[in-house]
């Protein structure tokens, strides 16, 4: 088996008395679309926060493409090739859609020229146009990001992540709050992306998860409950008890982040 794109060993995070992530170990094989599911408070987003460097790790290690990324700053981890979207949509509100993508595409340059005109950077501009087309936002390029609809902001966030040309994309509830039409479009997009980028997705919509995921990891109370192919997970008794058997009580109705 080839080197896992993301290998997590005994990862633990405590918030006071609460163990949010409890000795989690995972190895995600490359070129597979992984989904992480689990009830609210299972530690999914905390796991992402540990991987991308927002939170410091209490115990355990994280390897990205064989490299230990523990203790690195978020911007350093980002430069290694991990991009992520946030559960509460997060873009640069007062910048135009185009500028949002532009800065993401340009941020990898260590040197940010203080006096040259940004608009004249042709290489970056071409990449920006490609990304805009890919996420279908070309028509809205000049609009301020904060004025977009919720679904378009979610797409822009994916566009920002893509502009970084990452190896690994962490998507935290990318379709949460989208209309059915937007959901369909976004799911198709994610599936298409999975052909060239490794993706880990946190998602509550079971229909979507079982439709697109190659592998599913189920978390509950900070620990990994089960991990495997969708049909294996669907048949797993513990998962049924802990998760699938429950009524659909997800209360994620975050307001559009305007």
């Amino acid at each position, binding site marked *: 088996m080839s080197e896992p794109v993301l290998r997590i060993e005994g990862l633990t995070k405590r918030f006071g008395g609460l163990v949010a992530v409890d000795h989690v170990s995972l190895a995600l094989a490359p070129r597979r679309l992984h989904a992480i599911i689990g009830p609210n408070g299972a530690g999914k987003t905390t796991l992402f926060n540990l991987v991308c460097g927002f939170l410091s790790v209490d115990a355990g290690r994280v390897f990205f493409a064989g490299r230990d990324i523990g203790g690195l700053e978020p911007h350093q981890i*980002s430069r290694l090739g991990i991009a992520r979207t*946030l559960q509460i949509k997060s*873009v640069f509100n007062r910048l135009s859609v185009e500028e949002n993508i532009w800065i993401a595409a340009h941020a990898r340059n260590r040197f940010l*020229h*203080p006096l040259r005109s940004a608009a004249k950077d042709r290489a970056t501009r071409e990449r920006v146009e490609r990304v805009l087309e890919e996420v279908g936002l070309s028509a809205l390029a000049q609009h301020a990001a904060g004025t977009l609809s919720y679904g378009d902001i979610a797409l822009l966030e994916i566009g920002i992540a893509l502009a970084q040309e990452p190896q690994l994309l962490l998507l935290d509830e990318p379709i949460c709050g989208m209309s059915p039409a937007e959901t369909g479009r976004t799911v198709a997009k994610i599936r298409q992306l999975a052909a060239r980028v490794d993706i880990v997705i946190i998602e509550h919509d079971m229909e979507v998860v079982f439709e697109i995921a190659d592998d599913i990891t189920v978390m509950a109370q900070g620990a990994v409950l089960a991990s495997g192919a969708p049909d294996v997970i669907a048949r797993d008794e513990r998962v049924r008890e802990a998760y699938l058997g429950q009524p659909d009580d997800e209360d994620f109705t975050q307001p559009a982040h305007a």
Partner: protein
Amino acid sequence: MMRAKIERVLLSAFGAFLLAVPWLVPAIADRFWVSVITEILIWSLFAASVNLLFGYVGLLSFGQALFFGCGMYGVAIGIAKLGLGFWPALGLGVACSAAMALVAGVFAVRLTWHYFAIITLVFSLIFYFLALTLKQLTGGDDGTSFTLPATFRLGAMELSLADKTFQYFFMLATVASCFLVMHRLTASPLGRALAAIRENDTRAALIGLNVYMLRLAAFVISGVLAGLAGALFAFFGRYASATYMFYHVSGEAVVWTIVGGAGTLLGPLIGTSLFIVVREVVSTRWEHHGLIVGVVAILIVIFAPRGIVGLWRDMLERLVRRP
């Protein structure tokens, strides 16, 4: 398109006015106003340093007077105590403010919002009292005065700021170059990165921007601009005083910037002009001109949060759209 054209015409007219000031102003008013306009130019550069941090990076500094003071003392001490010439003294002033901004920035830019405002304020207060105490070096309450050295020497010909017209053009050229640099900066990759940090520092870090280093860079650039303004003001007044390091001076620049329009290139210039002109006109008849400043500031913050420039743009927008 129309809007851009109107603004370009107005800017050209404004530029022409600035170039004609030494001849035009004595002809239509008093020669004294040339001095006032020179002072406005210097203070608008100082306000621009606040604007760079607040308007373009989202950091509200209440300590810019510290760097202004460093620029002033660098020049005054350089000339009076070290016997430096014009340019080395100017360089010393700017270098002092840059070094001070680096030291203060290392601590300050770890914080944001009110914490940042408070730490910059505290830093400037510490050095204000230090400057008052170190009488040997700074002259304490009395400040340090000096004799103007020549700016240029060509054979027997000497050009110094004692020549009011030359002084005016020297200040105009320096301040205008700084505004030009800021204009370039805000449209550059660095400027966009700073705007991204202003809008959303979490997202900025996630796309690989080193938020801390970029904020520090902006803080030092802003400190250098404030220091340069201080150095110019030292040359203008031929002295340096700790009074100009007091937080009151920082606060004035914040008010000028917000009233003029934070996050716009010329907002600080407009705000500064307004308040200094009001001060000059009113203070001869009424000592409480600060009241006017306060009322105008409150009205602007409530009714035109984007300042005078924002108000102007909205008006122009409506005017142009009208069929």
